[in-house]
């Protein structure tokens, strides 16, 4: 019997891993992937709560989160392409024109 806490701990770990990815990696696409990890962690928490609270709301919310994630990725990749046309880099450290 898997307790709720197991799912939540797994979710917390995934979320923390994603946060590290966003904060440390230089490649924009990896940062994207890390954000997707974070969102998956959140979805896992929602589904786990939904299961243990016997409420369908959590699962519906996950559907919406997936929708939003897909939309964000689409726009994000379009931005990266537009950026790449102007300057051939995907390294965030190089895209730092504007300081302080």
């Amino acid at each position, binding site marked *: 019997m898997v307790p709720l806490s197991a799912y939540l701990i797994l979710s917390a770990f995934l*979320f923390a891993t994603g946060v590290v990815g966003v904060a440390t990696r230089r490649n924009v696409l990896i940062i994207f992937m890390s954000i997707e990890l974070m*969102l998956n*962690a*959140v979805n896992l928490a929602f589904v786990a709560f939904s299961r243990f609270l016997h409420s369908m709301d959590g699962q519906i*919310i996950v559907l919406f989160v997936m929708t939003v994630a897909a*939309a964000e990725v689409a726009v*994000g990749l379009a931005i990266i392409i*537009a950026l790449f*046309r102007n300057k051939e880099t995907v390294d965030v450290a190089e895209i730092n*024109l504007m300081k302080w």
Partner: protein
Amino acid sequence: MEITLPPVDLGAITPELIVTGTALVILLVDLFLPRDRKTPLAYLSLLGLVLAFAASLPLWGRARYAFKESISLDPFSLFFSSLFLLIAALTILISTNYLEREEIHRGEYYALLLFATLGMMLLAKGMDLVVLFLGLETLSISLYTLAGFMRARLRSNESALKYLLLGAFASGFLLYGIAFLYGATGTTNLKKVAVFLGKGAPLSDPFLFIGAGLLIVGFGFKVATVPFHMWAPDVYEGAPTSVTAFMIAGTKAAAFSAFLRIFLYSLAPLKPNWSAVLWVLAVLTMTLGNVVAIAQQNIKRMLAYSSIAHAGYILVAVVAGGELGGSSILFYLLAYALMNLGAFAVVILLGQKGEENLNLPDYAGVGYRHPLPALAMAIFMFSLAGIPPTAGFMGKFYVFSAAVKAGYIGLAIIGVLNSVVSVFFYLRVTVMMYMREPRAEVGPIYTSPALAAALVIAVWGTLQLGLFPGRLLELALRSIRPLLG
């Protein structure tokens, strides 16, 4: 199987339907307009906004909830809805000239702006965390594109990318907070959460704390409070100026409206806990915003840090809470929108194609070359600094007196000190305009009736609220009561 159709109350969302419909019509009409004749779309969107406002008027005083209580039609929502429609309208007025000048005049701009407005209106009306989340994301995704609208400019690309990365990151935190709130209360409906917590549910449930904490982090990113503000100056500076104006005025107000709904209403029983955190955030935000603004030479960046500081003042009012604190926030957000949009209107006015004249020395002597815009800018600077008789002064007055009355005297003093510090960089612009020699190559500026109209409205609003704040304050009080009732 059996499906009972839900009561679909289209009347409750008529304004939103009109805004969406206008956006769709714009996308279609755009196909038939030649490349350089997109101005009718601006008028079309203004028409849509006016119609939406008209449609929202009969909603005052109607039944309060709709769609299984996921949206609310109380004065709070309608106040903010109207505010957002105003912000959108003013933004469109200052956009047309600018877009043509910078050669990015596309129909999709107006459609995206309207989609963003739709998102904001949902943030105002939402009573369910799902609706709030979707509204926030609609707003954000539209803005990610708008920030990168000048696709040929690296600055704009960078702005859009940073905005998206940090926005998505913040959404992750927000969602996780919603998840824990859901786990603690079993529902995402704010009304049910309020009832659940009010009935003496275990207030020390760790899920509640984690959820509230994550929500504060998420909203903190979205509103650019310290220490989650790092993205704002770059994003605001790189985006097209009209989009920056919309972001500064609209997104902040929309995010705060949702924040207030969640924290002052549903999570009110937890106030002793979150108000301590917000106290610290308010102080950090005000101080850092003001101090760093002093060093800025680029006016867009200066206004960016200024908006960070103002978010801090609003947080002071959130901490104060209650009727006085809440109503002062509403007043402040309207005053803030007007003075910022006005300032940006002048910034756009004084720019030229290819050279936006965004640095302080570019403002030298403008007072003599272009007296009327300079006068308007001076009024906006005075208002931002909080000098009477402007809306900005009244706003700060209400915020700080609410803080004092609620017992947060130290906070109010810090706020006033910050205001004093801010006078320096706001007035520096005025000094530049009136007490320096104009530079040789300042060419003639081209204004359009739309830009002039926006300026007139902003100036009138700023002075009107500064001299006769009473009626708005009453409206604000009336609007905040449903939240605290």
